[in-house]
């Protein structure tokens, strides 16, 4: 077994490097809120590519992916499926949002929607839904970091303590440098994670079974149900196609409207960069394949880990693997958790202040004060997510699916904002509220669902119906503004 001291030492060095890299760019951004939040609209293709890639290539992928492949088999393939088409809507939405963002000075998604409809309460509702969605997503990242340190320290660092330490580091660098710091650390971590994923994904099956083919042949003999879609549910029974398919569907629809991703439309230097990032995005999906291989390598591995999501670090610590390699893995998984976590907490706090306090409530505060408030909120959101992580006992993937149910409710509003001139603010507002409420009810009371589908689907349905019906029954307070807005969105 590799020595925990060396493993932790290597990871520690890595964290310090990230911290230094993450702090460096802070000198180059202007001291305005637009500088802190949108990086002065200057991100190029390389940074955009990795910032988007690494943001999604998170603890969810690194631990949740193998964890699901290990415990639920083919159910994990849903992750691959949704990522394939998930970013495609952004190809169309992104450039439109960038145009209105440049013209009207929006830096968040909610500013854009409430700006289009001249309705501040929309920004408030979106701020609340965003933060509600971000907390479980962040909790997932924190728990992931905790799992890694727990496994590689041989249980010496409890999950709550490990997650706490790692996210203190994240808090420090987000507080220091905002989004550009986030960008550069992600480029560095993105490359590192890709190398690591392929390295381990091919090495573990080779070490344990001789080859990838041998491994699957063995699993097909002993547990063939693992290799057939839609895989297994939490209890180990076959999952159903309805939930599998709607998990894919809801994730595809929700993916592009995650506020921290959508905000990239406002940070990109030009529209072509947005389009190219979307075109290149499926290349990131290929890096999920080795993570499934890792999970499957664990299926016949003895002894079993304490929780399925710990399978990867657990295997590493129970094999004869050089400590330095395990240390690098540990660093990579932490990197995965941190690089997603930082972008999320940054987005959640920016949204809370700019959309919740400034836009919705209408409190006038200067840019410097906004930056200060964003920093306070960074700390508050992290604490909320931390407490959720400590209290939550289920799987990491389930946390993400929960977040998606909330976030997917933004899509009808975004479509109406950027494409539908006739849409009215009150319709968008109540569509979102109705959709979120229905999703929440069906999420809490799973048995009330008429069919076993992802709760977000029902919310989306109600959301869309309310949006269309109320729009048709109401009239815009400023048809001129609506016309101009759609015109600007459609003019390259």
């Amino acid at each position, binding site marked *: 077994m590799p020595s925990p001291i060396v493993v932790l030492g290597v990871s520690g060095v890595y964290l310090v490097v990230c911290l230094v890299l993450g702090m460096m760019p802070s000198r180059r951004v202007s001291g305005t809120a637009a500088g802190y939040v949108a990086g002065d609209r200057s991100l190029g293709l390389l940074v955009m590519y990795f910032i988007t890639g690494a943001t999604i290539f998170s603890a969810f992928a690194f631990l949740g992916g193998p964890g699901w492949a290990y415990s639920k088999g*083919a159910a994990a*393939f849903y992750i*691959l*499926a949704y*990522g*394939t*088409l998930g970013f*495609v809507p952004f*190809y169309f939405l992104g450039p439109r949002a960038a145009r209105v963002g440049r013209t009207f000075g929006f830096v968040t998604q909610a500013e854009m929607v409430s700006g289009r409809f001249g309705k501040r309460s929309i920004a408030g509702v979106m701020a609340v839904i965003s933060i509600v969605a971000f907390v479980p997503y962040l909790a997932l990242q924190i728990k992931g970091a905790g799992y890694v340190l727990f496994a590689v320290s041989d249980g010496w660092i409890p999950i709550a303590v490990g997650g706490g330490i790692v996210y203190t580091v994240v808090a420090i660098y987000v507080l220091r440098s905002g989004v550009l710091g986030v960008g550069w650390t992600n480029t560095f971590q993105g490359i590192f994670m890709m190398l690591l994923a392929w390295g381990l994904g091919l090495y573990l099956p080779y070490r344990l079974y001789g*080859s*990838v*083919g*041998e*491994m*699957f*042949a063995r699993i*097909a003999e002993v547990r*063939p149900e693992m*290799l*057939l*879609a839609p895989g297994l549910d939490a209890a180990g029974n076959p999952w159903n*196609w*309805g939930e*599998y*398919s709607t998990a*894919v*569907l809801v994730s*595809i629809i929700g993916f592009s409207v995650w506020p921290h991703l959508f905000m990239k439309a406002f940070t990109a230097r030009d529209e072509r960069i947005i*389009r*190219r990032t*979307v*075109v290149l995005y*499926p*290349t990131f*999906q*290929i890096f999920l*394949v080795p993570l*499934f291989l890792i999970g499957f390598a664990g299926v016949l591995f003895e002894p079993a880990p304490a929780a399925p999501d710990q399978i990867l670090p657990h295997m590493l610590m129970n094999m004869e693997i050089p400590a330095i390699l395990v240390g690098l893995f540990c660093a990579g998984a932490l990197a995965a958790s941190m690089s997603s976590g930082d972008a999320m907490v940054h987005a959640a706090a920016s949204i809370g202040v700019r959309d919740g306090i400034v836009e919705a409530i209408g409190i006038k505060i200067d840019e410097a004060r906004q930056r200060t408030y964003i920093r306070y909120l960074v700390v508050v959101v992290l604490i909320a997510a931390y407490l959720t992580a400590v209290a939550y006992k289920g799987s990491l993937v389930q946390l993400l699916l929960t977040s998606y149910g909330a976030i997917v409710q933004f899509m009808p509003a975004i479509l109406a904002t950027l494409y539908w001139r006739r849409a009215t603010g009150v319709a968008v507002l109540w569509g979102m509220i109705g959709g979120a409420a229905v999703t929440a009810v069906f999420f809490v009371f799973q048995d009330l669902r008429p069919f076993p589908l992802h709760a977000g689907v029902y919310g989306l349905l109600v959301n869309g119906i309310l949006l269309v019906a109320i729009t048709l029954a109401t009239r815009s307070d400023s048809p001129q503004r609506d016309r101009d807005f759609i015109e600007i969105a*459609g003019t*390259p």
Partner: protein
Amino acid sequence: MRHVLFAVYAVICLGAMTWPGYAWFGNSIEPYVLGVPFSLAWVVGWVVLTFLALVLYHVAGELSESDGREED
């Protein structure tokens, strides 16, 4: 035209990765593709196809843009 083709592709791709396409055509262990069960290779195949479709769609758009025919 490219918009319609791409939309058709996207719908087919979605159907192929979920029910019913996945259940009917992609959901078996054999044949193995590069050692990987067919159910996984099927989804990976759609990832690759989607990348190609996006590249085609994007390049076609850039070309028509430089011809000055592009409306959006």
